[in-house]
C-alpha cells in the first residue's frame, strides 16, 4: 500500500531522483534549489537509492559546471541527474546537446521558471525549457504534485529504455512549492517500472579502459550530417516507449497516464491544449463546463518532445472545430509560440497523411498565458472558450492581462467561479517573522495525513526581506485538489497582523458568510472602532462571522515572543470546524513535538502552553449593523509622489499589480530610481531616538545604518526658524564649521528597528549609564511628528557642500554625505547594505553599477520600489543587473564604453576647439578630477560646453553634445556576493581583474549563498554548516584577496567595517582613486549566520580579532613610490577562533549535531587561521622594498 504524504513538487521530484540515481551534481537556483537540498540531506542522513547505495551529491560552481559533471558521470556509466531552472538550464544547454547527441540516458528535473529579459523573475513559466527544445532532450510535463512524483519515475524508466535523455518539467513555484496530499511511490513500485537490464546496458556504454572507445570526435562536412541523422530511430521509437512506461506504471500503481490526456465532452467542438500546472485547472474547468452541457475539452500534453503527431491527433475528438494552443512562454518575433506551431504542424501533417479524422478541418489559434506565475484561473479558461465560439476568434492572443497596447488580450469575467461548496478555502495573512507559513504547512500535514480529507497549500511571499508579508492559501476537501490558482473566494480569512487592515484589501477574497479571524491588540468590545471603515463595511456586507484574539498577548504570556503561529493555528482549527476541536489540538501538539522536539523540551512546552492558552483568548465579535469608523484607509503613496509612482508603483504596492495594463509598464525595463522613499512601510515597532545633549557627533550610527534611515546634517542654524516644534539640533562639534548646527534625524517610517545604531553609539549618559545618545523608543507615538521632522530635515536643510573646505576622509565628515541608496528591502540589520551606502555617499553622483544577481540585486532592484536614489541635482547611481555569472564582464563593458566614449568626446573637443574656445577645450582636456573640487569644476565646464554647442547641427557638435557628460569622471562599480565572486563568476572576475582596466569590484562576502537560502560556497569557512555542507565544511575558505594580490597590479583590500570603519573608508577611497582594477572584499554579517544581527559589528570585530578575517590593503601605487604595497591593518589573532565562531549558529549547530567532528574541524580551522596569519606576516616582509646597502 502506497504511503500518503503531503509534500511539495520539489520534494516529490527529488524523492524519485534520489531513489533512482547514483550521482547528483547540482547548483542552487530558485525555485529548483530545494530538490538538490533534499537530495543532499537524504544522502547526508544515509538514505539509499532502491539498490541500497547512497547517491553521491556534489555541489558545483555553476549550472555549467553541474552539467559538465553530469555529462562526465553519465559518460562513465553512472545513473546521474541534476535539478535546475531558468538561466541555470540555459547554462546547461551546450552539455545537453552533447548528452543527447551521445544517446545518453538521464533525467534533468526542472522547476520551470521565467528567463530574465526586461527583468529577472524567479517565478514560473516555460520560457526556460522552451529554449532547450532543440537539444534533443525529451520533455515530459507534470501538472500536479502527484504527477511530478509519477512522471519523475516514468521519465526515468523511459530514458533508460529509449536512450533519449529527458527534461522532466513542472511549473516553478506553482508546482515546485505547492504542498499537496499524494501517494508516495514505494521502492517496489519504482522497481516494477524500471527495467534493470537497461541500467546495466547504460553502464556498459560507460567509458572503460578495459574496452576503450573514443567518443566526442571532431567531424567534418563529409560525415557530420549523416552521423547526426543516425539517431533518428531512437527519436521515432521514443514516444511509444514513454507510453509503455506509462502503462507499466499504471500496472504498478493504478494511475494511468497518456502522452496526451484528453478530458471533456466526447463531442467537444472547442478544445484547448496546454501543459504544466495550467492543465490541471483546465481539466477542472472543462469538467465543470462539460457537465453543464458545453461542448468543450482539453488535451493535457505530457510528452512534448519527441512530439508524436499520431498520438496527438488520436487524443482529439473528431468533432473538434476550434483548437487553442496555450503557451506559457513568449517568443518575440516568432510566427507563433512553440506549442501552437507544433499543433499547426500536426494538424497540417494529419491532413497531408490522412491521419486526421475530424468532421471538419479545425481552426487553429494560439496564445500566451501565465508568464512568471501570472494567475491562470477557470475564469480565464472560460473566457477563452467563449472567445472560441466567435466567428473570428483572436489568434496570438494573451489571456490573464489587459493588453491595451497591441490588443492581444481576450476578455473574461473574473467573477466566474467553479470551486465546489464542500472544499474549505482558507487564507492567512501573516508576517514572515510570525511563523504563519510554518504553522499552515503543519495544518496541511495534519489534515492530509491524519484525516481522509485532501489538502493543498500554496504560499505567496513578499519581495522584501524585512517585515515580509506572507499569504497562505489552503484548501481542504473530500476529493484530490488540483486547483492550481490562488483562492478567489475564501470561506475562512485570518489576518495575523492588525496593521494589514490599513494596507491591504484583506477581505476582498472573503466569501459571503465566511469566517474572519483577526489578531487584534484590542478586545472584542473595542476592536470595531479601531478598524478602517471599508473593512467594517465588508464585514457587514458579506455577513462575516468575526472573531478576535490578542495573539501577541498570548505569545508574550507563554514565552513565544513574536511567534503567534501555533496560537493562530489553534484558533483556526477551533472555529473552522475542519476537525473536532480536541482531536485538532492533539494533532497540533503532535506536530509541534515533531517539528520542535529536537530543538529541546522547553521549546515544545512553550508551544504547548501557547496552544492551551489560545482558546481562552478567542472571542466572537458582535458585528454592528452600521459601519461607524472614522478611520479611512490611508493613501498608498503621498500625493506629492511623481505620476509614475502614483499610477504604477502605488498599484503594485497595494497588491493590485495584476490590474496594470500593458501600456503602463516601461517597455525596456527602465524604471525611475529613488522610489523606496514613497513606500512608507512602518515595519519597526521601536526606532532610535536621538539625545542631542549626549551626542558626540562621531557619525558611527550614520555609517552603519543598513537602510540609510539615520542621517546627519551640519548647517547654518538660520534655517531652524521654520523648523517643526519637536525638531532637534545641537551645536556643531566640527572644526570646519563651529558656528553651525548639527542634527541627527531618523526616518522612523523607513527604519526596520535593527538597532545596529544603538549598539555602535559610544556616547553614554554620565548620570545614567544605560542611556546613550541613541536609544530605542516606540515608533507609533512619534510617527507623525518625526514624519514632519524628516521632511523638514530632508527638504529644507541643505546638504553640506562637497567642495567647500570639507574633506571626506574620516567617518565624522563622511556622515554628512547624502547616501544615494536608501530604504532598501534588505533584512533588518543587513551587513551588506552599509558598504553599498558608503560607496554611494562617496561616489554616488557619478557611479555606474553592475550588480550580480543575488541579495544585492534583489534589495537593489526588486519592484515595486527601488533604493538607488538621487541627490539634489538629480544625479545618482545608474544601475543594472545582467546575470549571476557574468557580472564582472558586464561591469567591464561599462568601462569599455566609458573609456571609448570619453576618448571620442576628447577627440571631438579637440576637433571643435575653434567652436568652443581654446581655453574651455584645454580645461576640459586637462582637468584634474582626482578630488571632488576638480570634478565639480569639470561639471561646470561640461555645462559651458553644452551651451557652446547649443544650436549647432554639425554632426560632430551633435555627437559631442550627446557625449559631453562622459567627460566627467565616472566610477564603475561591480557589486556582488561571494557566490558570484568565488564560484559562478570567478572566471570572469579573474579575467576582468587581469584586464588592467579601471573598475571597482565590491564583494559582499557573507560566506554563503544568502539569497537562495544558505548553500555552501567556496567562501564558506572551514567548520561552518551550510546547505551542501551539513557536516560542516571540511575545507578552508578560498583566499580570493590573495589570488588578486598575486597579479601585482590590482588594488586589493579586505575590510570589515565593524572592526575598523577607518580602514574601510580608506579602502573605498583608495580603490576608487586607483586607475586600474580594484577589489574590496567586505566581511558581511548575515541572517544566514544565525546570531542577533544587532550585534553584527561586535561579531565583525571578533572575526578580525580571532584572525578569521585579517584586514589588509594592497596598493600597487605604493610599490612605485618605493613603499611596501602590502599593509596588514589588523593585529595578530588575540582570541581563539572558537570565541568568534561559536557565537554563530552556523558553527555552533555542528557542536550540537556532531560534537566530535565539530571539535576536529575547529582545531583544523584554528590551525588554518594561524598558518594564514603567518603567511601574511611573511608576505609583509616579502613585499618590503629592498633598502640599498
Amino acid at each position: 500500500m502506497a504511503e500518503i504524504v503531503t509534500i511539495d513538487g520539489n520534494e516529490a521530484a527529488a524523492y524519485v531522483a534520489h531513489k533512482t540515481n547514483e550521482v547528483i551534481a547540482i547548483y542552487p537556483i530558485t525555485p529548483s534549489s530545494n530538490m538538490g537540498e533534499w537530495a543532499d540531506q537524504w544522502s547526508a542522513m544515509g538514505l539509499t537509492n532502491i539498490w541500497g547505495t547512497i547517491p553521491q551529491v556534489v555541489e558545483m560552481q555553476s549550472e555549467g559546471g553541474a552539467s559538465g559533471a553530469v555529462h562526465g558521470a553519465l559518460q562513465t556509466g553512472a545513473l546521474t541527474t541534476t535539478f535546475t531552472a531558468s538561466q541555470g538550464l540555459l547554462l546547461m544547454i551546450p552539455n545537453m546537446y552533447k548528452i543527447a547527441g551521445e544517446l545518453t540516458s538521464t533525467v534533468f528535473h526542472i522547476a520551470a521558471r521565467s528567463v530574465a529579459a526586461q527583468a529577472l523573475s524567479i517565478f514560473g513559466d516555460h520560457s526556460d525549457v522552451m529554449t532547450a527544445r532543440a537539444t534533443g532532450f525529451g520533455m515530459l510535463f507534470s501538472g500536479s504534485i502527484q504527477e511530478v512524483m509519477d512522471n519523475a519515475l516514468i521519465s526515468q524508466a523511459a530514458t533508460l529504455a529509449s536512450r533519449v535523455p529527458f527534461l522532466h518539467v513542472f511549473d516553478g513555484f506553482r508546482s515546485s512549492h505547492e504542498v499537496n496530499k499524494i501517494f508516495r511511490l514505494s521502492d517496489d513500485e519504482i522497481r516494477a517500472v524500471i527495467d534493470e537490464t537497461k541500467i546495466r546496458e547504460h553502464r556498459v556504454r560507460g567509458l572503460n579502459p578495459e574496452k576503450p572507445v573514443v567518443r566526442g570526435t571532431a567531424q567534418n562536412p563529409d560525415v557530420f550530417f549523416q552521423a547526426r541523422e543516425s539517431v533518428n530511430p531512437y527519436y521515432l521509437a521514443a514516444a511509444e516507449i514513454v507510453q509503455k512506461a506509462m502503462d507499466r506504471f499504471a500496472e504498478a500503481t493504478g494511475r494511468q497516464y497518456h502522452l496526451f490526456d484528453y478530458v471533456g465532452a466526447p463531442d467537444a467542438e472547442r478544445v484547448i491544449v496546454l501543459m504544466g500546472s495550467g492543465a490541471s485547472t483546465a481539466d477542472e474547468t472543462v469538467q465543470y463546463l462539460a457537465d453543464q452541457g458545453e461542448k468543450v475539452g482539453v488535451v493535457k500534453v505530457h510528452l512534448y518532445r519527441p512530439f508524436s503527431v499520431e498520438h496527438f491527433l488520436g487524443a482529439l475528438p473528431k468533432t473538434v472545430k476550434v483548437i487553442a494552443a496555450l503557451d506559457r512562454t513568449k517568443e518575440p518575433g516568432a510566427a507563433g509560440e512553440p506549442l501552437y506551431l507544433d499543433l499547426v504542424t500536426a494538424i497540417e501533417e494529419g491532413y497531408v497523411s490522412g491521419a486526421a479524422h475530424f468532421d471538419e478541418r479545425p481552426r487553429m489559434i494560439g496564445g500566451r498565458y501565465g508568464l512568471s506565475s501570472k494567475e491562470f484561473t477557470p475564469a480565464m479558461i472560460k473566457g477563452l472558450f467563449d472567445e472560441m465560439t466567435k466567428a473570428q476568434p483572436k489568434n496570438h492572443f494573451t489571456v490573464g492581462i489587459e493588453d491595451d497596447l497591441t490588443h492581444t488580450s481576450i476578455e473574461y469575467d473574473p467573477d466566474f467561479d467553479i470551486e465546489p461548496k464542500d472544499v474549505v478555502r482558507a487564507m492567512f495573512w501573516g508576517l514572515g517573522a510570525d511563523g504563519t507559513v510554518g504553522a499552515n504547512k503543519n495544518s496541511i500535514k495534519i489534515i492530509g495525513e491524519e484525516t481522509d480529507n485532501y489538502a493543498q497549500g500554496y504560499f505567496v511571499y513578499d519581495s522584501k526581506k524585512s517585515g515580509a508579508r506572507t499569504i497562505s492559501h489552503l484548501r481542504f476537501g473530500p476529493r484530490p485538489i488540483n486547483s492550481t490558482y490562488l483562492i478567489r473566494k475564501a470561506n475562512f480569512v485570518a489576518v495575523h497582523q492588525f496593521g494589514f487592515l490599513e494596507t491591504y484589501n484583506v477581505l476582498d477574497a472573503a466569501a459571503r458568510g465566511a469566517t474572519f479571524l483577526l489578531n487584534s491588540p484590542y478586545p472584542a468590545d473595542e476592536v470595531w472602532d479601531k478598524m478602517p471603515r471599508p473593512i467594517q463595511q465588508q464585514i457587514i456586507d458579506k455577513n462575516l462571522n468575526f472573531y478576535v484574539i490578542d495573539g501577541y498577548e498570548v505569545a508574550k504570556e507563554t514565552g513565544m515572543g513574536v511567534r503567534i503561529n501555533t496560537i493562530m493555528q489553534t484558533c483556526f482549527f477551533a472555529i473552522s470546524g475542519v476537525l473536532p476541536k480536541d482531536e485538532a489540538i492533539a494533532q497540533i501538539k503532535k506536530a509541534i513535538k515533531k517539528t520542535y522536539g529536537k530543538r529541546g523540551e522547553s521549546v515544545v512546552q512553550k508551544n504547548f502552553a501557547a496552544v492551551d492558552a489560545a482558546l481562552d483568548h478567542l472571542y466572537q465579535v458582535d458585528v454592528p449593523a452600521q459601519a461607524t469608523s472614522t478611520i479611512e484607509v490611508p493613501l498608498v503613496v503621498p500625493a506629492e509622489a511623481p505620476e509614475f509612482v502614483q499610477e504604477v508603483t502605488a498599484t503594485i504596492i497595494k497588491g493590485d499589480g495584476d490590474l496594470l495594463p500593458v501600456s503602463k509598464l516601461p517597455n525596456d525595463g527602465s524604471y525611475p530610481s529613488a522610489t523606496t522613499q514613497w513606500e512608507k512601510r512602518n515595519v519597526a515597532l521601536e526606532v532610535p531616538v536621538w539625545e542631542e545633549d549626549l551626542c558626540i557627533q562621531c557619525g558611527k550610527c550614520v555609517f552603519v545604518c543598513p537602510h540609510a534611515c539615520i542621517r546627519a546634517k551640519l548647517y547654518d542654524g538660520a534655517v531652524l526658524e521654520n523648523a517643526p516644534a519637536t525638531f532637534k539640533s545641537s551645536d556643531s562639534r566640527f572644526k570646519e564649521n563651529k558656528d553651525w548646527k548639527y542634527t541627527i534625524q531618523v526616518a522612523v517610517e523607513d527604519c526596520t528597528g535593527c538597532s545596529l545604531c544603538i549598539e555602535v553609539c559610544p556616547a553614554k549618559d554620565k548620570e545614567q549609564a544605560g542611556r546613550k545618545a541613541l536609544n530605542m523608543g516606540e515608533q507609533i507615538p512619534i510617527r507623525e511628528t518625526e514624519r514632519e521632522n524628516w521632511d523638514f530635515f530632508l527638504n529644507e536643510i541643505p546638504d553640506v557642500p562637497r567642495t567647500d573646505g570639507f574633506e571626506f576622509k574620516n567617518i565624522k565628515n563622511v556622515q554628512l554625505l547624502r547616501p544615494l541608496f536608501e530604504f532598501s528591502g534588505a533584512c533588518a540589520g543587513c551587513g551588506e547594505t552599509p558598504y553599498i551606502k558608503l560607496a554611494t555617499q562617496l561616489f554616488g553622483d557619478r557611479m555606474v553599477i553592475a550588480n550580480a544577481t543575488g541579495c544585492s540585486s534583489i534589495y537593489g532592484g526588486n519592484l515595486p520600489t527601488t533604493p538607488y536614489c538621487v541627490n539634489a541635482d538629480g544625479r545618482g547611481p545608474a544601475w543594472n543587473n545582467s546575470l549571476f555569472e557574468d557580472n564582472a564582464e558586464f561591469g567591464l563593458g561599462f568601462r569599455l564604453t566609458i573609456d571609448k566614449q570619453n576618448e571620442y568626446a576628447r577627440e571631438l573637443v579637440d576637433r571643435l576647439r575653434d567652436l568652443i574656445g581654446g581655453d574651455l577645450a584645454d580645461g576640459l582636456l586637462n582637468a584634474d578630477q582626482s578630488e571632488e573640487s576638480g570634478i565639480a569644476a569639470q561639471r561646470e565646464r561640461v555645462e559651458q560646453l553644452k551651451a557652446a554647442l547649443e544650436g549647432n547641427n554639425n554632426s560632430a557638435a551633435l555627437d559631442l553634445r550627446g557625449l559631453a557628460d562622459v567627460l566627467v569622471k565616472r566610477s564603475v562599480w561591480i557589486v556582488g556576493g561571494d557566490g558570484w565572486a568565488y564560484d559562478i563568476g570567478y572566471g570572469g572576475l579573474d579575467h576582468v581583474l587581469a584586464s588592467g582596466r579601471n573598475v571597482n569590484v565590491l564583494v559582499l562576502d557573507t560566506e554563503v549563498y544568502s539569497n537562495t537560502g544558505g548553500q555552501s560556497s567556496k567562501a564558506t569557512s572551514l567548520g561552518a554548516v551550510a546547505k551542501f555542507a551539513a557536516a560542516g565544511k571540511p575545507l578552508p575558505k578560498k583566499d580570493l584577496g590573495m589570488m588578486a594580490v598575486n597579479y601585482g597590479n590590482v588594488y586589493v583590500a579586505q575590510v570589515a567595517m565593524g572592526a575598523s570603519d577607518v580602514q574601510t573608508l580608506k579602502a573605498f577611497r583608495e580603490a576608487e582613486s586607483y586607475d586600474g582594477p580594484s577589489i574590496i572584499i567586505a566581511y558581511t554579517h548575515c541572517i544566514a549566520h544565525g546570531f542577533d544581527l544587532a550585534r553584527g559589528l561586535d561579531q565583525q570585530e571578533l572575526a578580525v580579532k580571532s584572525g578569521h578575517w585579517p584586514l589588509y590593503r594592497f596598493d600597487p601605487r605604493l610599490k612605485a613610490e618605493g613603499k611596501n604595497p602590502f599593509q596588514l591593518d589588523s593585529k595578530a589573532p588575540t582570541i581563539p577562533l572558537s570565541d568568534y565562531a561559536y557565537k554563530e549558529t552556523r558553527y555552533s549547530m555542528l557542536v550540537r549535531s556532531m560534537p566530535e567532528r565539530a571539535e576536529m574541524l575547529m582545531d583544523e580551522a584554528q590551525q588554518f587561521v594561524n598558518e594564514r596569519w603567518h603567511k601574511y606576516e611573511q608576505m609583509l616582509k616579502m613585499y618590503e622594498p629592498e633598502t640599498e646597502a
Partner: protein
Amino acid sequence: MDLTTTYMGLKLKNPLVPSASPLSESVDSIRHLEDAGASAVVLYSLFEEQIVEESEALDHFLSYGTESFAEALSYYPEMEDYKRGPEEYLDLIREAKAAVDIPVIGSLNGVSLGGWVDYAKRIESAGADAIELNVYYLPTSIDMTGTEVEKVYVDIVKYIKKNVDIPVAVKLSPYFSAMANMAKQLSDAGADALVLFNRFYQPDFDLENLEVVPRLVLSTSYEMRLPLRWTAILYGRIASDIAITGGVHIHEDVIKGLMAGASVTMMASALLRNGPARIGETLEAVKVWMEEHEYESVEQMQGSMSQKNVAEPAAFERANYMKVLQSWQPDPSGRGFQR
C-alpha cells in the same frame, strides 16, 4: 596512615575532592583528576536555565528569517538531531563512569521544581554515584521573605529525595538569616550532605565602557574561614555530612576543614591555577603533617576542632569578632590600624 573518609555513604580513599569546575568538562580531564589522586569528582553543573536558553536560542536562530522570502525559505540544512545540554551532560556521566574508578557526583542547577526532579532522575539513571544540588539562587525580589526563600530550598531537596535513590548533597550559599536552622531544615528534608558554600560570581564594572561585566575571580585560602566556622558549628548537630568548598588551597586548609568536621574538602580554584597535580601534592603534604603531628587517620581528626569539641566553643560565636578587633592596635600615625 589512613586517609579514607566516608561522604554520603560513599567510601573515599582520601578527603580531597575536586568540586564542580571546568576541569570536569571532559572525560580526559576527569581521568587526569583521578590520576592525580582525587577520591571522587563533582562534575561541572548542569544548568537548567542554560539548557532552556540554548534550546530557545537554537529554535530562534533556526526559525529566524525562514518562510518569509520565496527564494530562501530556510537557511540551514535540517539536522537529524541536536545534542542539547542534558544529553551531552548525561553522556559525560556515562563516559566518566566507564573511564574512572572513583565516584562520580553529578551537579545540577535547576529552575523549575519539575526541571530539578527531571534532570536529577536522568543524572541518576546515567549512573552518577551521587548528586550535588547547586542551588545557585539569588533572591533579588524585594517582596520575597526569608521564609519563602528557605521553603524553596527545602522543597527542592524533599522533592528530589523522594524521586532518586542515590545520595543527595546540597551546595548552598551563606546568605541565610538563620544559617544553622537552615542547615537543620535541609538535613531534616533528607540532604545527605551540605556543601559549604557556593561562591556567587560577583559582577564587575567596566569603567571605560560603563558596562556591567561578568568577571571570574578565583578564591584564596582566606575565603575558607567562612565555611570553616559554619562546619565547626554544625558538626555533630545535624545528620547530614558536610563538605567544605571555597578557599581550599593547601594542605593546611584540608586539615583545618577536616578538624572542623568536614567529611571531605573540595578544591577548584587551586586546581585551575596549578593544575590537577596539586591534588597529589596537597595529599602528600597532608600525610607529612599528619606524620609529624602523629595523627593516624583522617577519621581521628574529623570534627576534633568543631564547636562541640573545642575548649572554647564561644570562639565560634560573636565574641570572636570582638576579640579579633581587640587584637589590633591603633596605628600611631592615626591613619588606620596596625598590629
